[in-house]
C-alpha cells in the first residue's frame, strides 16, 4: 500500500476549471461528504483570499437509477420510491405522483381524500420548512433554535407515524385514494401540536429575527433578482423571496387550495434573510390552512369506487371470487393505465415538483421523469455563491435546501 488511496481511484468528476482569475487564486473542493452540505454535493470553488470568484457544482453522488427502476414496477409499486425523493416531505411526493396517474386514468378522488391530501400536504410543508430552518440556524451556531424546531418536527413525525406507520417514508398515497383513514383522536393531537408550534415559533422569532449575528450573516448575502431567478427556473421560496408571488397553490389551484384562505408571503430582495423569513411565514400560512381544513373535512370514503385502481375490501377478497381475482390482478399486473403522457406538478416545499409520466397502456409505466426543484436549483446556485465569502456558502446552501434524494434521483 505505497500509493495513497486517492491516487489509485479515478476522479468521478471533471472540474470546469483548475485555476482562478488570478495567479494567486486557490481552487478548493468542498464536499461531497461535508457536514454542512447536508446532502452529498461537491462544490469546486476558486478563491481570492476568502472571496469566492467562481464555483462549479457537482451533484449525482446520490444517483440510484430511480427513473430506470420505475420502468420495471407497477404503478402502485412506485409509491415507496417516490417517498424517497424529497424525504423531508414524502407525502407531497406521494400525492403529486398519484395525481399524475389519476389524471392519466381519468379518476376523480373522493372529497374526503381531496381535503385530507391537502391537509397532509400542508402538514408536510410544515415539517419540511422546520427542518430547513432548523438546519440553517444550527449551521450558524443557533443550537437552541435548532432544538426547538426539531422538537416540533419530531412531534409531527411521531404523529404522522400514528397515521401511516412510518416517521419519514410514509407510502401513504394510493392511486385513487389513501392507504387508510385517520385513526381516532388524530385531529385532537393535531390541534395540540399546532398550538405547541405557535409557542415555539414565537420563541424562534424572538431569538433570531433581530439578532445582530444572524442578520450580519444573512442580510445581503446570496442575493438574486426575480428576473434571474426565473431565468434559472427557480420556484418555491427562492423565487418568492425575490418578491414574485408565484405559487402553484394560487396560480394553478389543485386539490382543495381554491377553497382555502391563505396568503403567499414574498420577500424584498431575494437574499438569505428573505428566504428564511418566507419559510417562517409560509409555515404560519400552512397552520392557518390546516385549521381551516380540520373544519372542512367531510365524512365519506377515502378511496374511489373504481375497480381499475382501488383494492377491494379485505372481507370481500376472502369471500368472493371476483374480488379475489381483482385483488390479484391489481397486485400482480398493476392498475391498467390508458396510453398517453401527462405532466402533473404540485407546489412542494422547495418549489415545483413535477412528474412526467408516459404510459403505453397496462400496469407498468413506460417512462417516469421527475422535475425536481432541487436539481433545477443546483443549476443556478452558482449565482448565489459567487462574489460572497467562502463562509457564506454554508448559510446560502442551507437556505436553498437542496435535498439529495430528489436532486440526484
Amino acid at each position, binding site marked *: 500500500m505505497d500509493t495513497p488511496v486517492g491516487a489509485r481511484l479515478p476522479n468521478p468528476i471533471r472540474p470546469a476549471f483548475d485555476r482562478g482569475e488570478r495567479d494567486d487564486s486557490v481552487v478548493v473542493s468542498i464536499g461531497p461528504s461535508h457536514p454542512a452540505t447536508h446532502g452529498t454535493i461537491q462544490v469546486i470553488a476558486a478563491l481570492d483570499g476568502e472571496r469566492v470568484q467562481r464555483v462549479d457544482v457537482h451533484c449525482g453522488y446520490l444517483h440510484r437509477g430511480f427513473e430506470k427502476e420505475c420502468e420495471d414496477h407497477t404503478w402502485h409499486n412506485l409509491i415507496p420510491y417516490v417517498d424517497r425523493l424529497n424525504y423531508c416531505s414524502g407525502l407531497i411526493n406521494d400525492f403529486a405522483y398519484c395525481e399524475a396517474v389519476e389524471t392519466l386514468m381519468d379518476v376523480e378522488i373522493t372529497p374526503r381524500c381531496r381535503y385530507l391530501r391537502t391537509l397532509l400536504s400542508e402538514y408536510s410543508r410544515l415539517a419540511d420548512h422546520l427542518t430547513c430552518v432548523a438546519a440553517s440556524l444550527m449551521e450558524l451556531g443557533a443550537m437552541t433554535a435548532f432544538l426547538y424546531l426539531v422538537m416540533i418536527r419530531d412531534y409531527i413525525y411521531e404523529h404522522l407515524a400514528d397515521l401511516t406507520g412510518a416517521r419519514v417514508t410514509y407510502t401513504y398515497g394510493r392511486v385513487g385514494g389513501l392507504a387508510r383513514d385517520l385513526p381516532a383522536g388524530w385531529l385532537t393531537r393535531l390541534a395540540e401540536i399546532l398550538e405547541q408550534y405557535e409557542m415555539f415559533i414565537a420563541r424562534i422569532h424572538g431569538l433570531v429575527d433581530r439578532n445582530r449575528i444572524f442578520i450580519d450573516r444573512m442580510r445581503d448575502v446570496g442575493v438574486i433578482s426575480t428576473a434571474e431567478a426565473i431565468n434559472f427556473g427557480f420556484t418555491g421560496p427562492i423565487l418568492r423571496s425575490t418578491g414574485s408571488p408565484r405559487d402553484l397553490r394560487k396560480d394553478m389551484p389543485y386539490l382543495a387550495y381554491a377553497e382555502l384562505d391563505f396568503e403567499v408571503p414574498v420577500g424584498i430582495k431575494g437574499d438569505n434573510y428573505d428566504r428564511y423569513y418566507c419559510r417562517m411565514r409560509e409555515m404560519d400560512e400552512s397552520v392557518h390552512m390546516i385549521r381551516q381544513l380540520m373544519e372542512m373535512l367531510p365524512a365519506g370514503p377515502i378511496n374511489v369506487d373504481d375497480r381499475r385502481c382501488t383494492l377491494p375490501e379485505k372481507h370481500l377478497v376472502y369471500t368472493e371470487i371476483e374480488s379475489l381475482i381483482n385483488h390479484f390482478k391489481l397486485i400482480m399486473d398493476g392498475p391498467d393505465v390508458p396510453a398517453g403522457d401527462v*405532466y402533473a406538478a404540485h407546489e412542494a416545499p422547495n418549489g415545483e415538483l413535477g412528474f412526467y409520466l408516459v404510459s403505453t397502456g397496462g400496469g407498468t409505466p413506460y*417512462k417516469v421523469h421527475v*422535475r425536481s426543484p432541487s436539481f433545477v436549483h443546483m443549476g443556478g446556485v452558482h449565482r448565489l455563491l459567487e462574489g460572497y465569502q467562502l463562509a457564506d456558502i454554508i448559510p446560502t446552501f442551507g437556505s436553498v435546501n437542496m435535498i439529495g434524494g430528489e436532486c440526484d434521483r
Partner: protein
Amino acid sequence: MSTPIRDRILQALVPADGEGKVAHGMPEITVPAAALLGLVHRLKDEFHFDMFLDVTAVDWPQRTPRFDVVYHFYSTTHLFRLRLKARVPVAEPVVDSLVSLYGSAGFMERECHDMYGIVFRGNADLRPILLYEGFVGHPLRKDYGKTQEQPLVPYRT
C-alpha cells in the same frame, strides 16, 4: 388557464409540418428538430413563456425517428404550461440547445445528455452531471439493461 390564449398559441405556433393538440388540459406541439429554436424564441418573446421547466426524452426503439425530446415551459404571465416535442433519430440525436434563452436549460440538458445521449448543439458544457466521468452508454435508453454494471471502483471480493 384561459382557453383563448391557449388556442391563440396553438394557432400561431403550430408549424405546417408539425402538429398541435391539447392533452389532459395541456397544449402540446410537436415540431421538427430544426424548427425548435425558432419556435421557442417566439414562445418566449411573443407569448411570455419565461420559465424553462424541464427537458427529458422518451425512447421508442421500434420507431423512426427513435427519440422524442420533451420540453415543458411555464408562463408566469399566463400561468399555464406548454409541452413541446421534437423527434430526433438515433443516428443523429441532435437538437439546438436553449441555453441562449434560458439559464436553467444548462443543467437539464446535461442530464438529458447523460441519460439518453441527446446532443444539445450550442451547450458547451455537456459533462456528466448525475453520472460520472468515463461512464459508457446512456442508462435510460431502453437497450441499456437494468442490471448492467460498470463500477468506477472495483468491487472488493
